[in-house]
């Protein structure tokens, strides 16, 4: 075990040899680029397209291998294989776009059709190649499940440079892509070429998928563009930070997974990278402060206390005794109640304020029932913090008699 850990550590700290280090760095840059482009693919709600792209690469890889074997007596050049992958994935994307536009098929149906057909063709071609008994064909199966084993320096550089270029183009278009994803109609009305932007997004995605094929494999490369942004969304509510977090998660996941596979060479790199990404996703889902599971549970805990405090103070304002032990304990702790359950001066004034707030909220609910329903637990906060002041003011006249009744009649009852 300690041997494994020290090997992992030396790989992670880039001391496991020149080639391994290059592959790790290349993978990290690839993961970061995939994580970044994935944000917009996810926000544009086109996550499945990357699955179509990756599966559509297989016939191109097989044909490029056949072409290389026939023309140069060697089909293993990564450049050539990726060129073939790009061409056939491009045809796949065009087929999806054409079917969606020209027929009544929805995009997911078109994707399913194209994905399975291209993959079927690829598998048939691969089986055919295996029967040919030519050199180098063993490496082809790496494209399905991913492996860093065969990667040489030039390959790692190709991957790193392409992923960096994709990221660069992406950074220069953050504004346009954000607008495209949030409000395409508005973007179009402003004179942006929405169709071209969509195509550019697909092109960048295509480039990332194609260069990720060798490392992650075409079955799993979709995870590289989907898991990081989904995990990042747990941490932030803004596009810019989401891009950074997603790129970081993708980069770290790919780096760590590739390091693992460099010391356990018989395990598929793609699977290791995706499992690493999944653990980041799991951690994000659990512990992210605002949207995570624990964060939500914590919020629920405070939410319950807010309800107890609010209901307790409203009871005080109506002059009612408080029986619920938690409510009582909370109000005593806040100094609103004396130990014997009688309200303190502070408690009485807090109760009056709360009664006013509640009356305003009730008036708001009466006036705008549907609006109020959309507010969820916001209505447990002071109304002035939640609604614009002109709106609160418009509620007040309706409220006037109620607020007098509750502030003067509270203790009497």
């Amino acid at each position, binding site marked *: 075990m300690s041997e494994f850990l020290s090997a992992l550590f030396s790989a992670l700290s880039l001391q496991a040899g020149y080639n391994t280090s290059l592959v790790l760095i290349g993978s990290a840059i690839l993961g970061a680029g995939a994580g970044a482009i994935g944000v917009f693919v996810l926000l544009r709600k086109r996550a499945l397209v990357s699955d179509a792209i990756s599966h559509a690469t297989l016939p191109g890889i097989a044909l490029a291998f056949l072409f290389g074997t026939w023309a140069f007596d060697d089909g293993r050049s990564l450049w050539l294989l990726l060129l073939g992958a790009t061409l056939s994935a491009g045809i796949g994307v065009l087929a999806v776009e054409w079917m969606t536009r020209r027929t009544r098929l929805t995009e997911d149906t078109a994707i399913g059709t194209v994905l399975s057909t291209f993959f079927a063709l690829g598998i048939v071609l691969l089986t055919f190649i295996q029967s040919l008994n030519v050199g180098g064909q063993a490496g082809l199966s790496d494209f399905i499940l991913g492996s860093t084993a065969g990667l040489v320096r030039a390959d790692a550089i190709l991957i790193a440079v392409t992923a960096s270029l994709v990221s660069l183009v992406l950074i220069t278009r953050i504004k346009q892509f954000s607008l495209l994803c*949030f409000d395409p109609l508005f973007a179009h009305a402003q004179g942006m070429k929405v169709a071209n932007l969509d195509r550019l997004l697909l092109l960048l995605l295509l480039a990332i998928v194609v260069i990720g094929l060798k490392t992650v494999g075409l079955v799993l490369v979709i995870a590289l563009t989907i898991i990081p942004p989904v995990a990042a969304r747990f941490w932030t*509510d803004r596009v810019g930070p*989401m891009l950074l977090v997603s790129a970081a998660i993708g980069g770290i996941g790919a780096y760590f997974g590739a390091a693992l596979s460099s010391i356990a060479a018989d395990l598929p790199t793609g699977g290791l990278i995706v499992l690493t990404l999944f653990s980041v996703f799991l951690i994000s889902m659990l512990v992210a402060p605002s949207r995570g599971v624990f964060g939500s549970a914590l919020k629920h805990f405070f939410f319950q206390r807010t309800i107890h405090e609010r209901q307790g103070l409203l009871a005080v304002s109506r002059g009612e005794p408080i029986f619920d032990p938690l409510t009582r304990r909370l109000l005593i702790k806040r100094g609103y109640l004396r130990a014997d359950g009688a309200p303190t001066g502070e408690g009485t004034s807090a109760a009056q304020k709360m009664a006013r707030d509640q009356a305003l909220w009730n008036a708001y609910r009466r006036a705008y029932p549907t*609006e109020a329903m959309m507010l969820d637990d916001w209505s447990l906060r002071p109304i002035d913090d939640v609604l614009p002041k002109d*709106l609160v003011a418009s509620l007040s006249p309706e409220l006037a008699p109620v607020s007098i009744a509750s502030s003067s009649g509270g203790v009497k009852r």
Partner: protein
Amino acid sequence: MSNTALKTVFDGSLPIATNTDDDAFAVSGLTVAYDRKPVLWDISFAARAGVITAIVGPNGAGKSTLLKAALNLIPSVTGQTQVFNQPLNQARAKVAYMPQRAAVDWDFPASALDVVMMGLYGTLGFLRWPGRKERAKARKCLEMVDMGAFEGRQIGQLSGGQQQRVFMARALAQEADVYLMDEPFAGVDAATEAIILRTLKKLAAEGKCVVVVHHDLDTVRTMFDDVLLLNKQVIASGPIDDVMSDDAVRKTYSGRLSVHQEGPIGGAAVTPHF
């Protein structure tokens, strides 16, 4: 209204305003078809600067489609749009378009201020990132709709009326000459309705052209200056007093209800003063 530049042509008994030289926003011969079924037929219509024009008609009359097709956001079979006598493509920067609130996913990771700044992207250079100046401007627009306190909140955590105000602020940030608003008053609270109407009136008073898709027949008279009655084709258009006759309204909603007997249209009662 006789001293305005608006020419009114009488087709039978209903007035239809046609393009004149100083119309701010003019659509001519616009026809839109989905799957060979015409949704808009030969629409010619012009809106003046300095007033608010409402587009009114029953559900499915093509009100939103008219705005989208006029802006080339959806394909049309025929038709041209002119903005201050320039073809649309040369004048897009002069037009602010506000889609329906329901058209976007409000879970999108953006704050209220982020959305308003999207209105400035058009004027920002290709590679320029919004800076302090843009922030200040976007903030001012949020304050104009009384949303200054909410600039940092994620847009999904705003109420429907507040989301509509954010959209209004984004349109303001565009500093356009023509404002095309799709259902700005749909499903909002009274305070939001008031502030949006006030903002639109202010824009009109500044000489802007404001066109609003509206669903509530009851409030048309009190809120707007001009009206386009639409039901797949132009039924009547021009100043409200000339256009909103019983006859015209009945013709617009014909086949859907008999105005005085059935009453409500989209939740609003048609009062007999038309």
